[in-house]
């Protein structure tokens, strides 16, 4: 099929879908609003498929300055779409809990919006994936953030949800403040907001006789502030402090969305920002060093603090900090020019893809199990292997993938990350990584141990809706598939769209 559509079409379809649903929802009657997510899932899936047939051309000239349509951007758009689809599936499973904590006359009160907001968020994420200008980055980021404020605090009858919302709000706004201030400074130093132009302008600005010659402090100051803002989004230590509380308090699908979508988008932006500065002589080294420090801190904090957790959701929150650490390790390797095995961008992308699959899978299983066991502590998983072998197996795969066992996507991600790190001789980071991987094995396997070693607390079998079963099965299969055949993902990253036609010709 000839590829003639601009990738921007994707966002547009998503937005239109969101708007349509919003209106349709307000005019529809009936308490059962499952048709909304069902419809969105179908449409988003179509968009997902459609994304393989778009061109790498950003289309209209006007958008070019802000919008990049390279393979990476497309790839992250797909991630966003996929995440949203799964989150919607989760939301359907979760609606019972949700309804309890939303004031409303009917069972389905407020659910329509809950299903619509992720679609807008998704659009925001997709914009972020393409954003190459601080302007668009900022706007898209805020779109995502603000919808997350709402989503996190959605269960307003539950004070923990609200508390999480407030914490996220204040700290999020704080980080936005720093991000903006950082953008200001970078703009001030370079006179540009577009990343490409910044990268072009910088050598001249820094050169002998240039405006910044001998005083990179301002530039560094700006970069650091931006890093802080982004570090907040991706949950990197020491700006991770909000993560556990917010993850625990938020409705579980939102938590999943936060930990995957927000993080993925944050990372693509981070990668783009860092890439613009990393090749500068002195500044680049500093940036790399600082990111490496952040990586080390995140690894240690996330993984170690996850060990004593009893609540699975909270444990996954800490672990998500840890995963941010692994990703940052790869980001810290961006100054390598390697394009084959060991390339840092590939590592980030692959890791995120794997992380997406496994995190979503574990949250999905968690929602199902928590619905039945009335709690999401690890001990609620006791004996799951007996109660529902299918769910237990899926969770097993998710946990193994998170821990990084071969033949799962998570392993290839870690493999690539550490390959990049070794290649860049970040041996101290690797050393920390060794400790934290071991710690990770401990806390992930605790879930496995609970599922298989322990006797179940109650013997009721867990029933599953067909959609959830399909999604869980699909995610599990995908984790294993990409753990053995990474090539499809690599194709998406390396070849310009349309990847399908390309790989078929081989």
């Amino acid at each position, binding site marked *: 099929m000839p590829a003639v559509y601009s990738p921007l079409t994707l966002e547009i379809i998503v937005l239109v879908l969101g708007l349509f649903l919003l209106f349709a929802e307000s005019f529809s009657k009936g308490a059962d609003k499952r048709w909304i997510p069902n419809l969105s899932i179908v449409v988003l899936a179509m968009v997902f498929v459609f994304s393989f047939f778009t061109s790498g051309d950003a289309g209209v000239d006007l958008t070019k300055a802000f919008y990049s349509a390279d393979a990476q951007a497309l790839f992250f758009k797909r991630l966003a779409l996929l995440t949203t689809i799964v989150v919607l599936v989760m939301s359907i499973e979760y609606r019972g809990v949700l309804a309890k904590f939303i004031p*409303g*006359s009917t069972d389905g009160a407020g659910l329509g919006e809950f299903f619509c907001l992720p679609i807008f*968020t998704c659009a925001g994420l997709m914009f972020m994936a393409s954003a190459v200008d601080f302007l*668009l980055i900022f706007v898209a980021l*805020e779109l995502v953030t603000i919808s997350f404020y709402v989503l996190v605090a959605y269960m307003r009858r539950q004070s923990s949800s609200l508390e999480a919302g407030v914490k996220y709000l204040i700290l999020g706004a704080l980080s936005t403040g720093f991000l903006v201030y950082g953008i200001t400074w970078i703009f001030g130093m370079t006179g540009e907001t577009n990343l490409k132009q910044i990268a072009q302008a910088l050598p001249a600005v820094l050169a002998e006789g240039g405006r910044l010659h*001998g*005083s990179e*402090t301002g530039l560094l*100051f700006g970069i650091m502030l931006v890093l802080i803002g982004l570090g907040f989004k991706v949950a990197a230590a020491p700006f991770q402090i909000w993560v556990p509380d917010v993850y625990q308090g938020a409705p579980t699908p939102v938590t999943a969305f936060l930990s995957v979508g927000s993080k993925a988008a944050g990372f693509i932006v981070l990668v783009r920002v860092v890439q613009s500065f990393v090749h500068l002589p002195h500044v680049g080294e500093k940036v790399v060093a600082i990111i490496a420090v952040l990586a080390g801190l995140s690894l240690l904090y996330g993984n170690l603090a996850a060990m004593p957790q009893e609540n699975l959701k909270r444990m996954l929150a800490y672990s998500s900090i840890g995963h941010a650490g692994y990703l940052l390790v790869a980001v810290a390797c961006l100054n390598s020019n390697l394009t084959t095995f060991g390339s840092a961008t590939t590592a980030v992308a692959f890791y995120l893809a794997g992380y997406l699959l496994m995190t979503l899978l574990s949250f999905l299983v968690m929602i199902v199990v928590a619905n039945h066991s009335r709690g999401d502590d690890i001990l609620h998983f006791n004996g799951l292997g007996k109660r529902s072998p299918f769910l237990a197996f899926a969770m097993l795969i998710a946990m193994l993938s998170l821990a990084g066992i071969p033949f799962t996507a998570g392993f290839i991600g870690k493999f690539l990350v550490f390959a990049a790190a070794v290649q860049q001789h970040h041996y101290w980071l690797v050393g920390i990584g060794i400790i934290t991987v071991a710690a990770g094995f401990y806390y992930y396997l605790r879930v496995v141990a609970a599922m298989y070693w322990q006797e179940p607390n109650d013997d009721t079998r867990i029933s599953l809706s067909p959609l959830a079963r399909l999604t869980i099965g699909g995610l599990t299969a995908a984790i294993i598939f990409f753990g053995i055949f990474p090539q499809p993902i690599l194709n998406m990253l390396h070849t310009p769209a349309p990847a399908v036609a390309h790989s078929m010709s081989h």
Partner: protein
Amino acid sequence: TLVFGASVVINRNPVASALSLVVSFLGLAALFVGLDAFFIAVIQVLVYAGAVMVLFLFIIMLLDLRAEERRKINKAAWAGGALVALAFFLQVIAVVSGYRPGQSPFPALSTNNLNDAHHVGMALFTHHNLPFQVIGVLILVATIGVVILSKRELK
């Protein structure tokens, strides 16, 4: 501006803080004017000093907040916070004063009759079309959010 900014922080009563903030924002608008950014100055007054702050005051009144009662203040935490803020402030000063080109005065503009709103508008609607539309979505989302979070009974 700074004085009132400080008063925002110092005042124990949220209402006083809010009013200080209004004044501070007005001062800020004046500074914008000084920088030949008239459009921004206007927006600042309208949106910030006007709408936003009214909203704040409204909420304060709604929640019927009185001055923070004197709670046992954790001295160490307070000192720590102050220290961090001070350190950050010093860093800002150091960065700013280290910025040599900034010591020179502002370059002159090519025209004295700056059609400021026009330029911003042009930029906004042509070059920055895409982000502008995204902003629209953002506001929509915010609206939905406010509705959902505040409505007493959802249908």
